[in-house]
């Protein structure tokens, strides 16, 4: 549940969309958003969240503090 995209920073370049292993990213209202129900912080898939790693604007794909951190299944 944890990453979100700061929409005022998003250039809508779409680089994050195909990188997401959970297909949690989609375009909405001109920028991209992350479905918090699907996001797993890429835990179990990759070393680092892919959206943040590919995003051209720093501090745009960030941990969303308003929701609990993702817990990987035991």
């Amino acid at each position, binding site marked *: 549940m944890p990453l979100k995209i700061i929409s005022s*920073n998003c*250039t*809508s*370049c*779409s*680089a994050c969309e*195909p*990188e997401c292993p959970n297909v949690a990213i989609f375009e909405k209202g001109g920028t991209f958003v992350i479905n918090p129900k699907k996001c797993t912080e890429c835990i179990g898939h*990759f*070393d*680092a969240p*892919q959206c943040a*790693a*590919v995003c*051209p*604007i720093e501090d745009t794909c960030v941990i969303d503090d308003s929701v609990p951190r993702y817990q990987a299944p035991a």
Partner: protein
Amino acid sequence: MQASTPHEPTEVTPVVNVEDVMQQVAEHKGCGTSGGSGKASCGSAAGQGDLPTEIWEKVKNHPCYSEEAHHHYARMHVAVAPACNIQCNYCNRKYDCANESRPGVVSEKLTPEQAAKKVLAVASTIPQMTVLGIAGPGDPLANPEKTFKTFELIAKTAPDIKLCLSTNGLALPDHVDTIARFNVDHVTITINMVDPEIGAKIYPWVFWNHKRYTGVEAAKILTDHQMRGLEMLTERGILCKVNSVMIPGVNDKHLVEVNRAVKSRGAFLHNIMPLISAPEHGTVFGLTGQRGPTAQELKALQDSCEGEMNMMRHCRQCRADAVGLLGEDRSAEFTTDKIMAMEVNYDLDTRKAYQAKVEEERLAKVTAKQEELSTLAGEMSDIKLLVAVATKGSGLINEHFGHAKEFQIYELSTSGAKFVGHRRVDLYCQGGYGEEDSLETIIRAINDCHAVFVAKIGGCPKADLLKAGIEPVDQFAHEFIEKSAIGWFKSYLDKVNGGEIEHIQRGDAEIRQGALISAA
């Protein structure tokens, strides 16, 4: 991953001899005559006859590959590829201005379907449009599905249009076979270094194999992929041009080495461009105050690489959605709203007829140059000088001094008139240069020239130009550029030889950094 010694030039045998190809392009006189002798050249040493037809067809109508073709043929870019897989210090993905003309900038993104419609609409309106490129605004190969879907749609509906793409090369080795399958016959790779230590100063990171790499490691991955991608294109007979951004103090001297590395791997044309780094663009280089090269620094580097391979000097560093002839952006006429409402009638015959007419015009221009060139025969002089030309195209001196948005620069010597670049003199869209400053701007931009050729010029600017040591020449209005320039140069030499004037070297000139205003 392929272990590599990527910087040891591995000689790749090109499918065609690219030097021969470029020689033919440079000397193209059309099929019919050969230079001054006027004899038929089809099948002879001076014309198309020596070239495999498929190679000739690939290069002769491509404005970005032939400085001669760019006066006659137009290209368009469709912005279907927004994502990028690397970060460059000269790029800022947040910046978008409709008046701005430079790579990476675009006003609206298109779906492949919209792009295909747009290509048809433009090709029907501008019959000299022969080339479709995908150049971003990100990297085409970081958006492979959108890029190749677009090519597929266009190949179906407008089969006569040539396809090309421009990439940073990171994902190139993965896609070379697909590129070949879609009959993409030109690829441009932007290669700014072959030394990862230098690369680390240009690229903060690359995203590769699900990981962000930084520093020297990132640059090493990038250069390995670029070199391998270039070799793979050469092996498949796909023509490859290399773009390099000249960044003084970072890679300026190193680009000579880059030139050798790409030549040995089969690149057929090298385009060294000046860094664009205005602070208002918000790029890393813009903010750190990294300067771009002066006109003479750029020319000196291009000249020093020229012995090694063909250099391109007519690049306008256009937008990822540019439409029209180089230097004449018509993208505003073809917004999505407008093209969706357009009645499109794609008439292949009309296009062919128009292009045949262009070939005639092109031939006339080259013939005129050859005639005048013969008058220089026997002249002996070491004098080499630059002249600026105000032109709207068609190879003619047909622009008013005050209306020119750019000047073409020719180097004149006893071997003839050689196109060596162009200088933008348009005004800033922000900041406001007033009318009274525009003449100074022009003089700074062409300060290394001895003369400026125009169709017409007012009395005031004429006097100011003369004061600055630049001779305004309007006696060749609406005549062919090269023929006129050679004629003028011959009389200049006569005056120098007769002691009437003294030949003095000119100083350096500025390269304009600001936004290109797409004036109506």
